């Protein structure tokens, strides 16, 4: 069983969704993978008149989305992306979901194949608080954003910002934009020191595209 959408989205994700929304041009075709109850899609549809589609694993969330008039299918990132034609969307959004996929590398490749741009956000396991908990207590970290115990967490492939950047490089995927979100929901972007961000950012938000 593949779990795509973390059982409950962390609180700070509202902020993360707004950051994502700001990256999307009006009128664009958008696919939101792991779209939850459709908050982002509905926001984008209303404020940016995007042509939106969603994929969500949870039946009750799909029901919620469909009731909002959104076009959402029950499915997951590991299995349902291969059927979309290349370049079908202007943006493909994968928010707080990559770490829960079975094959993150393959999912990333599908994202940049289907979308002209892919927008990916994930919790940063390199954050000092996470490191601190592991170092000091020798226990798997439980933080505000990684709220579940290791045995309950859907996050089977946690990564740090450095890991993510390294994987993109290896897959030949270009990072066109990066935003680092700290504990207070403040964001910094662009030329910020990635090594420092890997220590201080709770979430990484990246815009990707296929090189060339």
């Amino acid at each position, binding site marked *: 069983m593949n779990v795509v959408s973390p059982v409950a989205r962390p609180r700070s994700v509202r902020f993360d969704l707004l950051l994502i929304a700001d990256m999307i041009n009006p009128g664009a*075709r958008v696919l939101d993978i792991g779209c939850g109850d459709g908050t982002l899609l509905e926001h984008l549809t209303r404020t940016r008149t995007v042509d939106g*589609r969603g994929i969500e694993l949870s*039946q009750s969330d*799909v*029901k*919620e*989305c*469909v*009731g*909002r*008039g*959104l*076009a*959402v*299918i*029950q*499915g997951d990132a590991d299995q*349902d992306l291969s*059927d*979309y*034609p290349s370049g*079908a969307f202007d943006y493909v959004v994968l928010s707080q979901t990559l770490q829960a996929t079975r094959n993150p590398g393959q999912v990333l490749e599908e994202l940049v194949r289907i979308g002209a741009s892919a927008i990916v956000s994930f919790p940063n396991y390199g954050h000092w608080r996470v490191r601190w908990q592991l170092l000091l207590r020798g226990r798997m970290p439980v933080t505000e954003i990684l709220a579940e115990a290791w045995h309950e967490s859907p996050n089977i492939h946690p990564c740090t910002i450095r890991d993510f950047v390294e994987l993109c490089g290896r897959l030949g995927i270009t990072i066109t934009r990066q935003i680092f979100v700290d504990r207070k929901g403040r964001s910094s972007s662009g030329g910020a020191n990635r090594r420092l961000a890997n220590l201080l950012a709770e979430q990484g938000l990246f815009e990707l595209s296929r090189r060339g």
Partner: protein
Amino acid sequence: MSEAFNPLVASERARQAGQYAVLGTDRRLRLDCGVELGPFTVAYQTYGKLNAERSNVIIACHALTGDQYVTGTHPVTGKNGWWDLVVGPGQIIDTERYFVLCANVLGGCMGTTGPAEIDPATGKPYGLSFPVITVADMVRAQAMLLDHLGIKDVFCVIGGSMGGMQVLQWAVSYPDRVFAAVPIAAAARHSAQNIAFHEVGRQAIMADRDWHGGDYHSHGTRPTKGLAVARMAAHITYLSEQALRRKFGRRLQDRSNLSYGFDADFQVESYLRYQGSTFVDRFDANSYLYITRAMDYFDLAADKGGRLADVFTNTKTRFCLMSFTSDWLFPTADSREIVHALNAAAAKVSFVEIVTDKGHDAFLLDEPEFHAMLTGFLSGAARERGLLQR
């Protein structure tokens, strides 16, 4: 057991109790098999009121053995309509808001022209001289009915099983006339396994000596035994192993010990026999042959070299597909195939797999999750169509 049942009489009663239209008088209906049919009758029922803009039409498509009596008391069987739980005032498909139309399919036996009808050319029942019809032919006949009623396009076409096949065909044949499409527990093509089950049913009918090569009307007989067996076999496929276990298990029927004979020792046997015996009191055997054949022939992408995505190119219709976990007749994989094709065609599509042990027939039963999803989709689409306030 059913000498009293006469398909022609029942068909006439169904026609008179509801509404019907004689179509194909000016321009005949060209069927897929090449035959031109006309004039022919389509019996239909409507529920609710057509609004001034004629924008609130929902076409409900019935399944293999269903008919136009969606809700209310059936004039022939005296039972409730097949979608009593879903259609009606204040129901999910609210007849105080929508104008619901359901037509008996071509080849059927509840008032629409089918093999039990008198062939005007010979003055005798068509029997097997009735042309083989397809799901696309059924939909063509429904489109002619809409033309006849002065209805240009419909808000939604909805149906389960063979009804779902018609929904898909509607969306493909008349994309500009369908705002929203809800194919439930359906498939883009009938599977080999399903064709096999149908063949068993047909062989049971044809093996009945009262069938007389389809000419039983002139022999004053009816192949009730064969038709009952066909129904019994089919009925198993509409349920699920879990549902059979839950409802019957290995419990015995009206006895405490095995009979060491071939009576209906088990409750499940008794149930199936009952299903078979009541079915023959409302359905014509030849209609069963023709309609199962129409389902067998259904293959939406046959004209496109099997590429399903191509049949949906540029569609503006909003789709909502639903399947049921325990449905082994039209399993989720069949719905997913359609969803993937719609995705590839960049169509607006929603899909959910409902968890239930009720099998294929779940779409007819009390299934709260399914009903909730349907409610959500219809209200979402109705808002977009301007039938509901935002």
